[in-house]
C-alpha cells in the first residue's frame, strides 16, 4: 500500500500541546508525528483523555501547538497570519463536531450557505450549492427547518453538508457519531465514506466508535498523548470482526 508518489495533505512534526491549569502543566500531546496522504480515510482512535480532540484542534488550525509544526498541503500553519488561517479554515478544511455546532437560529440551508458567504461566493450561487449539498445528504425536504426541528442524525448531516460547502480538501470530524445512536451513527459513517470515495476528500476522524475501523484506510491509535501504533485496515479487520461479533 505504501506508495512513494502519493502526496501528503497533512503532516505533523513533534507536535506538543501543554495546558497550564493553575500550578500544574498538563501535557495533552507529547510529540506527535503523523503523515496523512491525500484521499485517505484516517481514524484517530483512543480512549477519552488520550489527546484525540487536542490533535484534531491542532490539525484543524483551531488551536496553536505549544511546539512542533503542522503542515497542511506542505504549508506550515504556524507561519500563517489570521487572514490566511481564515482562508484555510474556509476553503481547505471542513469541520464536523460531536455536538454538531450548527447556528441555532439559522435554518439548515442558511447554515450550509454560511461558509460560502465567508468565501465571498455570490448569494444565488451559494444557495444553489447549499440546496445541492442538502439534497446529497438526503435532507432536500428539510431546507428551511431550524436545527431544533431536526433529529440528531439530521443535524449531523446538515453539519456534513456545511463542511463540504466550499469543496474542502480535508474533512475533520471530531467524534461525529458520539452523540448519535447506532443506526444514525452508521448513516453518518456511510456518508463520510461515500464522500471520501466519490469526491476524493481526505477524511480525518477522531473517534472511539469501532464501526469506523471497518471503513478506514488507516487507524492511528493514540494513548496518553502519543501515537501508540498506526495500522492499515487489513491488519485490524479480523479483530474488528470479532468485536462486532461480540456485540451481537
Amino acid at each position, binding site marked *: 500500500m505504501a506508495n512513494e508518489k502519493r502526496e501528503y495533505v497533512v503532516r505533523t512534526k513533534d507536535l506538543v500541546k501543554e495546558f497550564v491549569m493553575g500550578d500544574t502543566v498538563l501535557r495533552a500531546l507529547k510529540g506527535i508525528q503523523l503523515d496523512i496522504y491525500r484521499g485517505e480515510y484516517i481514524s484517530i482512535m483512543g480512549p477519552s483523555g488520550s489527546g484525540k480532540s487536542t490533535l484534531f484542534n491542532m490539525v484543524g488550525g*483551531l488551536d496553536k501547538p505549544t511546539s512542533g509544526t503542522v503542515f497542511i*498541503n506542505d504549508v506550515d500553519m504556524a507561519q500563517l497570519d489570521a487572514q490566511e488561517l*481564515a482562508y484555510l*479554515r474556509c476553503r481547505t478544511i471542513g469541520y464536523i463536531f460531536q455536538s454538531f455546532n450548527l447556528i441555532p437560529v439559522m435554518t439548515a440551508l442558511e447554515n450550509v450557505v454560511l461558509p460560502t458567504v465567508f468565501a*465571498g461566493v455570490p448569494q444565488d450561487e451559494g444557495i444553489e450549492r447549499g440546496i445541492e449539498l442538502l439534497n446529497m445528504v438526503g435532507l432536500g425536504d428539510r431546507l428551511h427547518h431550524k436545527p431544533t426541528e431536526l433529529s440528531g442524525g439530521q443535524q449531523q448531516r446538515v453539519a456534513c453538508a456545511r463542511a463540504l460547502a466550499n469543496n474542502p480538501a480535508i474533512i475533520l470530524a471530531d467524534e461525529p457519531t458520539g452523540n448519535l445512536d447506532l443506526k444514525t451513527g452508521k448513516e453518518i459513517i456511510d456518508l463520510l465514506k461515500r464522500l471520501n470515495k466519490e469526491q476524493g476528500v481526505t477524511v480525518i476522524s477522531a473517534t472511539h466508535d469501532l464501526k469506523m475501523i471497518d471503513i478506514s484506510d488507516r487507524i492511528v491509535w493514540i494513548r496518553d498523548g502519543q501515537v501508540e501504533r498506526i495500522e492499515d485496515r487489513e491488519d485490524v479487520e479480523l479483530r474488528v470482526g470479532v468485536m462486532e461479533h461480540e456485540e451481537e
Partner: protein
Amino acid sequence: MPNGSAKAAVGRQTQLPFRRALEISLKSLRIRFWRSMITAGGIFLGIAFLTVVLTQSLMQWPVPEKVDAGYVRVSGQVNGPGDFSVWTPVKIEEGIKAGIPEDVIKRVAAEDGTFSLADIVQGQIQAKRADRNLRRVRQEAKGLSKIKDKLAFYVNAATDADLKVGDAIKAGVPRYVARNLAILAAVRKELEAELAKTENGRETKRAKRLRAEMDFYLAAALDKNLKPSDAPGRPRKAPGGSATFKGSDLADVVREQPDWINPLYSGAALDQEINVDDAVRCGVPRTIAKHLAGEGKTFKAGPLNDAVKAHDTWMRIWQRRSERNAIFKTVPKAAVATLARAHARTLNDILADARNVAEDADLTNVMVVNEGRKVKADFARDGKAAGLVRLEDGDNIYVPDRNSRYRMIWLVVMSLLVCAVGITNSMLMAVTERYKEIGTMKCLGALDKFVVELFMLESGMMGIAASILGWVVGFLLMVLLAGATRGWDLVANIQGMAVLVTFFEAIGIGLLLTLVATIAPAKRAADMPPAMALRSEI
C-alpha cells in the same frame, strides 16, 4: 520543506463588504427578535432612567409670577419674596423732554421734583381696565333693559305681594290668567270675611259656595275645560286693570302650567335655581349670568334683580374712572419706552436692595425670568459684571440654593452609573452567550474583524433604537408627571434647544455604552482560538 513557494498556495481571506455585514446583522436581529428585545430592554430602561433625570434638570426655570406694573420680584434664597420698583425716579424736566405730556406729569409728580414712571404705567393699565369694563357694562345694560321690568314683576310675585292685573298683562301673563286670579283674590276676601263671622267653626252654606267658586276660577286660570253648568252662582264681572291678585296664586299657576312663560321668569316666580344657559337664552348677558353662578351652573333670580338694580351704579363708577384715567392715554408709548430703558435698574441694584442673600444661595445660577425672557447670571464666574443685566417691568429674579444643584449633579451621576451597569450587563450577557457561535463562525472562515464588526453593527442598531425609544418614553413620562403634579406652566417653560441636547446626550451615551460593552467581549471571543470559544458553555 519548501515553505515559501507552497505558502503561496494559501490565499488570504478577504473582509466581506460592509453591506454584507449589515445584511447579516439585520437578519440576525430579526431572527433572534425576542432575545434582542430583552437585551434592548436593558438599554431602554437605562436610557429612560437617564432621560427622566436629564429632563427633570431642564425644569429649573421658574414660572414667572405676575407682578404689579413697574415692579420686579425677588425670590428663592433671599430673605422672603419681595417686590422692588424696576425704575429709578425720573426728573420732571427729563420726562417733559422725553415727550410725556405736562398735565400727566403734574398728576404723578412728587414734591422733590421727580416722578415715578411706574405711576404712569399703572395709570395706563387703569385706563385700559376702566375702558374695558365700561364697554362691558354698557353692553350688559342693553341686554338688561329688555328684561328688567318683567324680571322685577316676577321676583315680586315670588314674595307673595299683591300684583296689579295691568302690570301682569304687561309682564306677559295671559289675560285670562290675570283676570281669573283677580276674581279668585276677590272671592277669597269674601270668604275670609264670611269665615270671620262664624264663631263655632262650622261653615255656613255661603262659605261652602264661595269655596266652590274659588275652585272654579282657579281652574279657569289654569285654562281647564269647563262646562257652563260648572259655574257656581252668577258669573262675576271681569275686573279692571287696577284689580290685584296674590303672587302665590300666580306661582301656583306657573308651577302647574308653565307653557306661557320662559325659564328665567318661571324661575323667578317660583324662586328656583335658574340654569346659566337658559338665562342667556332668555336675554341675561352671559357675563352677568356667569358671575352670579360663580363656580356652579345655576343662580337665583333675586341676586340677578339686585345686580340689575346695582348696574347703574357700576356704570357710573366705570364711567368716572375711565374719564379720570383717560389722561394717561395721551402718553406716547415711545416716551415711556425711552425712559424705561434709561431708568431701568440692574440686577446688582436689586440684589443690593434685597440684602439678605442666604449663605447657601447658588450665585452661579441666578435666573431672571419673564414672559418670553430668560437670562442667567453667574456671579461666581463674572463677579459684579453678571449683575449688569438691565431689568424689565415684571421680571422675576430667582436665586436658587446650592444644594439643589449638587443634588441634581449627584442624580445625573447616579443615573449614568445605573444606566452603564444595566447596559453593560445586558450586552455582556448577549455576547457571551454566543461565544460558541463565534467559534463556529471562525471555523467556517469568518475573520476576527468581521465577527467584531457583525456584533458591533448588531448592538449599535439595537443601541440606537432602544435609546431613542428610551428617550421618548423617559421624556414623556417626566413631562406628563411634572405637568400633572407641578403644573403645565413648568413644562411649557422648558427650552426646545435644551430638550434636543438631552436627546443627543441620551442617544450618544446609549450608543457609546452599548458599543463599549459589546466590543470587549466580542473582541475577546474573536481573538481566542476557535477551539476555546467552541468549548465555552454558558
